[in-house]
């Protein structure tokens, strides 16, 4: 039973992600999660504010089913297939975490940001809101996120996706190395 609760190694995980993309291509669709955010906007009536949201979102409703499945998968994996322990990060990462006041004895997600009690700190709410806005805005500006560009786009050897992924990393490195020391 212990075996089923262990996290998966990178080579199994990476292979299975590629299979997810392949299955969606074989279904006549493409692998991209952030376009669902645009669909949500359209469903909520954002078409009144911008024609960017005036599209036939029912054509993309298959992707909402993928999202529903992903949520169910998260539920099953966290409740029945995992102990939800903190990932076994490297010793160097533990030192870095301590330097930004994040406990190195933690859970799957840091309690400092993702526990209900952490929400009593307005700073946490601010971090989650800014993070979310940047994700949504940036993904649509770049025309895709990790699944659409870093996996699908690069698998198809598309130059735009390479530029986007370089951008993802510039942004991520600036955030972790320059901004984190100021906000944590």
């Amino acid at each position, binding site marked *: 039973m212990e075996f089923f609760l262990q996290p998966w190694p990178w080579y199994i995980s*990476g292979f299975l992600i590629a299979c997810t993309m392949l299955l969606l*291509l074989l279904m006549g669709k*493409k692998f991209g*999660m952030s376009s*669902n955010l*645009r669909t949500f906007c359209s469903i909520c009536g954002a078409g009144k504010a911008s024609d960017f949201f005036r599209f036939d979102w029912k054509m993309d409703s298959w992707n909402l089913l993928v999202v529903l499945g*992903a949520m169910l998968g998260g539920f099953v994996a966290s409740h029945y297939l995992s102990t939800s322990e903190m990932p076994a990060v490297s010793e160097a990462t533990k030192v870095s975490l301590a330097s930004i006041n994040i406990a190195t004895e933690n859970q799957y997600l840091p309690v400092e940001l993702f526990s209900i009690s952490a929400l009593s700190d307005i700073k946490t709410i601010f971090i989650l809101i800014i993070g979310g806005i940047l994700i949504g805005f940036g*993904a649509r500006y770049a025309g895709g996120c990790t699944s659409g560009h870093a996996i699908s786009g690069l698998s198809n050897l598309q130059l735009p996706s390479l530029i986007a992924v370089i951008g*993802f990393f510039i942004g991520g490195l600036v955030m972790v190395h320059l901004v984190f020391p100021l906000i944590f």
Partner: protein
Amino acid sequence: MMKQILFILIGFIFGIIMYKSEAASWFRIYEMFQFQSFHMYGIIGTALAFGVLFVQMIKRYKIKSFDGKPIVILPKEKSFSRYMIGGIIFGLGWALAGACPGPIFVLIGAGYLPILIVLFAAVFGTFLYGLLKDKLPH
């Protein structure tokens, strides 16, 4: 109906992969941007190696989709600024929230309620892009 179930099933498997690989954990994203572990690079690298192989096979052998139609992967429009600027903005958010859109949904299913704030903010960010789109360099 069969198709609908298949889409849910693909999402379900994807959700389990994201959670079990720890790609949905803030800690792994933080560690990746610190270059302190091979884990995330191994995941992305393996996914890409097989991804390139699968896409090349589809093209070379003209593999058709399950309903018999040719599989066409539309190229993205040419540009530098939108991918670079948009990419940097996305990267800032990815590192700050420690989750990209796929894992956001997976973590909601896993029951981490504060992630709902990230989701609503991401929908709002998408809305903001729709409002400002024509004023931005593309």
